[in-house]
């Protein structure tokens, strides 16, 4: 379900319970775990990464897009469009960074 998508984050929140995945960026989906405890720890760790990613994304896009401070409680058209694009770009930056890191780690392994 949470097949290691934001794998780069694994690096700063290492937990002994979850075995390091080959390549370190978890691109190959969920490895199988011998015991349920380890699996749950892995899922939890994965969710920590996702939730952290989401929080940061929200902070960034909020700061960048919400300029019109509270003439009313509604998002303006411009702000809404900005938020949509902001989320999309955030994911693209994530992908670019993951790609570069993956390449680097592949080079290192040789």
């Amino acid at each position, binding site marked *: 379900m949470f097949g290691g*998508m934001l794998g780069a984050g694994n690096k700063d929140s290492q937990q002994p319970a979850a075995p390091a995945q080959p390549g370190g960026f978890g691109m190959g989906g969920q490895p199988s775990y011998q015991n349920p405890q380890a699996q749950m720890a892995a899922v939890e760790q994965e969710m920590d990464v996702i*939730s952290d990613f989401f929080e940061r994304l*929200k902070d960034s896009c909020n700061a960048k897009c919400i300029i019109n401070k*509270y003439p009313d*409680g509604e998002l303006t058209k411009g702000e809404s469009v900005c938020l949509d694009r902001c*989320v999309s770009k955030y994911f693209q930056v994530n992908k670019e960074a993951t790609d570069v890191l993956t390449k680097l780690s592949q080079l290192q392994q040789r």
Partner: protein
Amino acid sequence: MFGGYNKGPSLQEQQMQAMMEQRQMKDFMKMYVKLVNNCFDDCINGFEEKNLTDNEIACTRKCTQKFMKVNERVGARFSEEHQKMLESQIQQ
């Protein structure tokens, strides 16, 4: 995949459920703390009196509303992008 046929939820399922609930609560509290901090910073600037002025109250209410809308919208886009990302990874 989980547990037997006519038993209740397995221990692992129960643990997972408890973990999810805990996490939801934590996420909500995080959001709440951020909301208060954000709207305080944006709406409260002077300390000439002890109580909130009418303007500050109005601003705080609008700020709260808007914060929730941002939350909702970003959350929706996030799930879409996340889903896309998962699908493209499965294809690889």
